[in-house]
């Protein structure tokens, strides 16, 4: 069985309608996301200079960075709206990276901080 048959696509059916789960957002949404990213970056840098947050600095920075990463991937790269197959490929790559990090740092003695 081909992937197309598995997905219920009939022979001769155009590819385009299957391509998207939803329409891409418009410029207004993109600018809102851009402003959010700018604010998060400002918070990241501000947090870096607050001595009182020294003990929780690493988790805060990682959460903020993950938030920025997700916003760009979901909205600007359209993974939120496009085919799940693209997400599968990309998340697969990220899972392999996470495994690589754990294996390298655990076996060779590196650390995040």
């Amino acid at each position, binding site marked *: 069985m*081909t*992937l*197309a048959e598995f*997905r219920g*696509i009939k022979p*001769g*059916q*155009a*590819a*385009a309608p*299957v*391509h998207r789960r939803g329409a*891409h957002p*418009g*410029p207004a949404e*993109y*600018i809102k*996301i*851009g402003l959010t*990213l*700018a604010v998060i*970056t400002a918070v*990241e*840098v501000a947090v*870096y200079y607050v001595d009182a947050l020294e003990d929780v*600095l*690493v988790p805060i*920075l*990682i959460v*903020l*960075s993950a938030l*920025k*990463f997700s916003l*760009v*991937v979901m*909205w*600007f*790269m359209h993974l939120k709206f496009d*085919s799940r*197959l*693209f997400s599968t*490929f*990309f998340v*697969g*790559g*990220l899972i*392999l*990276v996470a495994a*690589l*990090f754990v294996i*390298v*740092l655990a076996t*060779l*003695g*590196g*650390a*995040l*901080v």
Partner: protein
Amino acid sequence: MQHSPALETNTGLDNRKLLMWLFLASECLFFGSLIAAYLLYRDKSVTGPYPEDLFDIPFTSVSAFILLMSSVTMVLALAAIQRGDQHGLRIWLFTTAFLGILFVSGQAFEFTEFNREGLSLSTNLFGTTFFVLTGFHGAHVTVGVLILLSLFVMAQRGRLTQAESLHVELAGLYWHFVDIVWIVIFTLVYLIQP
């Protein structure tokens, strides 16, 4: 120039876009390996200079902000071509390329400053892993700028129409990927220090 009509594919998806996502997945591993090597070796140098002696966080924050904003202009270029706005496409493509050039220039300045402070590719383990990681990222940004300028020239000559928006979308995917890699590098390399 003749363009072949969209072909029916096994997955129901455009193969060029599928290939780009596969390429980006492989790039995750490429940069993941370089970042892991940096984290492993950055505090194992026996001679200086060390990261805390060199990093200029305000300067790098501005660079990070510039690259982040270039992602916004890139997606606005895509939105423009998808609605057939050629003028908007040219403006946003050029702005994105300009911001990319600004980022690479900042990186070249940073590398020069670090070199002046005594850090080179062979000074210590920090220097080796830092320059290889950020150098490869800078090379990716440079390639992205060249792609954007090529698209800009195509748009100027009227060879980038609404029907060919996929070219801009693929360039955008590459550009946003370069941006998210910098989001990770900015946090793990610059902000979180041992």
